[in-house]
């Protein structure tokens, strides 16, 4: 039936036309740019001494991975724009559902990423509170300076 028609391997054929080749090249470049972004953000998390910069890099890291995953759910429909996975007409006919299947992008990565974003925000809130308390305690967000074993600021909390 229709699930057999939607074959995963059917799309694995090589691009034949010049425009397809260009599109394929462009998509590859975009994906590799996301990989570079992930690596740069990871570098920031691992090697910056300031906790605030670590936090910002962590947010950039999560967001790069999220965009990467949304991109995996994208779909190339030659000659037409891919549509968001939302039906438009309210008294719907089976033909319109069929049209949506033929033009819509994959909804599953988007739903997973919605979950990932919420959990990312939950972690960010807690991390921000911890960084704020760290600053109030040591008077700096630099982890190397606080390691020296100096007395915490007496007037700070």
């Amino acid at each position, binding site marked *: 039936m229709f699930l057999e028609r939607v074959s995963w391997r059917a799309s694995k054929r090589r691009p034949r036309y010049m425009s397809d080749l260009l599109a394929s090249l462009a998509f*590859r470049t975009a994906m590799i740019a996301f990989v570079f972004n992930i690596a740069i953000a990871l570098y920031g998390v691992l090697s910056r001494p300031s906790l605030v910069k670590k936090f910002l890099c962590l947010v950039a890291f999560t967001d790069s991975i999220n965009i990467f995953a949304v991109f995996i759910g994208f779909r190339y429909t030659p000659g037409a724009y891919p549509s968001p996975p*939302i039906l438009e007409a309210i008294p719907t006919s089976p033909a319109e559902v069929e049209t949506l299947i033929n033009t819509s992008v*994959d909804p*599953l990565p988007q739903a997973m990423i*919605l*979950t990932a974003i919420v959990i990312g925000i939950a972690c960010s*809130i807690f991390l921000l509170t911890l960084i704020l308390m760290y600053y109030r305690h040591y008077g700096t967000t630099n982890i190397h300076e606080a390691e020296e074993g100096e007395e915490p600021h007496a007037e700070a909390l």
Partner: protein
Amino acid sequence: MNRKDIALALSLSLLVLALSLTISLEGLGPIVPRELRPLGASFVQNSYNPWNASLTSLSLNVVTAIVWDYRGLDTLYETLVLFASIAATLVVLRGYSELSGLGIKGLSDVSKSVTVVIAPLIVVYGIATAIHGHLTPGGGFQGGTIAVVAATLIIAVFSLEYLYRRGVSTSRLMLLRILGLLAIILTSLSLASIGMPSNVNAYILQNMAKDDSALSMPGVLFDTPLAGSIFLYNLFEFIIVFSGLTFAAMMLVLRESELESIKEAAEVYE
């Protein structure tokens, strides 16, 4: 340049190289497929499909249908994670006190007048995004985060003091969050608790009628698809996210004199 930096650079460039090669050779699947994957296609097919009554959720927005119907348990736990993280924030800052009368300064009169006009509009837009989540792009979480912008704007322009005077305190927001979470849990149990006394089959987190269960959430309001529990979940998720993130924003801008009692509270717990 010590050994640690070199190791870091090498491992990161290896990561980039390996991932880029895998992607270029289509090791993670075809780059930009032309057809939907079978799982995604079945979600798109069944999300709004009255002709297949046992699998549909009557939601025009497929993403919302996945989030609150097909994978509803995931989203329930996600809401609990958000709840837990804000509870953890409260534990870190335990013993804070809310003091009013520290003085309102805020920004200039121009920005205050503009904020008075804009803030209600932002909240209304957030509510609209949330309760139309099954018809248009949006949903409870998106609407809630939009509405939190209004609260953050008020804190930045008017100061925290203004929120206290308007009766917005952290304990009230906490109460609102707990009520929202309770409402979500009750909604997920509602059909099961209706079916159990009368010996009718029903499931937890059930939305539309299934093959062996005739009970169903309301699918249509007049002539608009309501998507049953998805509408209710979006509404309650809006309440949870709005109150939770406003709570977090207020905790992050607490003044120093409100935090003085934290140290004593910590000593008591030790």
